[in-house]
């Protein structure tokens, strides 16, 4: 049994409960312990790349340091938390000036300089559980379903900080789809942005972007789309005008492991 410090983030406690609930029950079935710290703070949703911003990066550093103090890797499911926490960890490891300012403010018992290993839940499935091992644990394979993986922007980029997969030709979600018995559908827009937070500023732009993603997937014969991001799910469902169903990848994982109906009873 491997134990991870689990950082759910603000949205998984509210609008994205499915992403969280199915992640937790599936991890348990796979022998992974997700230990949530008591006092995590919202990551802010977007990493501020500016070198002269320190305060906006502190909540991510606190989460990283909490995992370090427990000697455990940190795991997230939300694409945005994953992006913010990994970019923070990369910069505090590579930018001495940022590390000095952050540590000068936080006054931790021991300075934090990037010691924690950060996993996205998909990386845990690939690198800790193993997709071959996952395949063996599937009791309800999703045979015959044609599923399009939607990476969006936050899961892969910037690649030098996130180091999750090839940002232009990723395979991790397609390999996950194969492991749960379904057929992955490759399409051009799988790693292009859904419009993100622009839905608040300019609905038309969000509609245009999310429709481009959905139409691209539909053109290649997808029957559904999976994502790890609550904001992608929102844009693809509400702004795209497409009828193609959109799910969190954790929901399909729980279904394949035979846990979904049990959890709904």
């Amino acid at each position, binding site marked *: 049994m491997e134990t991870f410090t689990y950082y759910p983030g603000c949205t998984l406690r509210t*609008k994205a409960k499915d992403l969280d609930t199915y992640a937790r029950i599936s991890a348990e079935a796979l022998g992974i312990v997700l230990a949530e710290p008591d006092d995590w703070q919202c990551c802010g949703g977007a990493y501020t790349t500016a070198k002269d911003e320190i305060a906006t990066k502190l909540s991510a550093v606190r989460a990283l340091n909490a995992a370090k103090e427990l000697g455990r890797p940190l795991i997230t499911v*939300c694409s*945005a938390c994953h992006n913010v926490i990994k970019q923070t960890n990369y910069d505090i490891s590579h930018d001495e000036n940022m590390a000095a300012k952050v540590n000068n403010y936080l006054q931790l018992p021991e300075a934090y300089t990037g010691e924690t290993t950060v996993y996205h839940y998909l990386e845990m499935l690939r690198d800790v559980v193993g997709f071959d091992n996952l395949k063996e644990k599937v009791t309800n394979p999703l045979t015959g379903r044609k599923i399009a993986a939607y990476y969006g*922007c936050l899961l892969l980029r910037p690649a030098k900080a996130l180091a999750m997969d090839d940002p232009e030709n990723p395979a991790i979600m397609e390999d996950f789809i194969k492991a749960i018995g379904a057929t992955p559908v490759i399409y051009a827009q799988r790693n292009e942005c859904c*419009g993100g937070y622009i839905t608040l500023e300019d609905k038309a732009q969000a509609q245009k972007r999310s429709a481009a993603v959905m139409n691209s997937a539909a053109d290649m014969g997808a029957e559904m789309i999976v994502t790890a991001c609550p904001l992608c799910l*929102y844009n693809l469902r509400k702004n795209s005008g497409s009828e193609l169903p959109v799910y969190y990848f954790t929901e399909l994982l729980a279904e394949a492991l035979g846990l979904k109906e049990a959890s709904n009873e």
Partner: protein
Amino acid sequence: MNKNLKEQVLRSSGANVLKCMRCGKCSATCPSYDEMEYHPHQFVYMVEKGDIETLMKSESLYRCLTCFACVDRCPRGVEPAKVVEAVRLAAVRQQGGNRLSPDMIPDMLDEDLPQQAIVTALRKYAK
């Protein structure tokens, strides 16, 4: 040209705009290209020239989705999104420069809108 402003933006972005070879790949791959008055390659060039006040007044600042497509696809490692962010911060950090304030949020909500959208927008559009 405001030399102090240029130095501030360059330092804040951490980018080296002199590495740009003007291939335009950043703008070619930008999902907001059609919505922008000034495109990513123009941000890089105009910051290099010190023409930053023009960018600070442009709506283009609020069209960047921070999707990092231009960052990963730039063959010279210029990281245009970081230049856009530095200019946007220079604008929203001004007195009265906030694009979005918390009291505007309730009217924007619908029952499915994730919290992630709100915190991200506030981080992008306000100080």
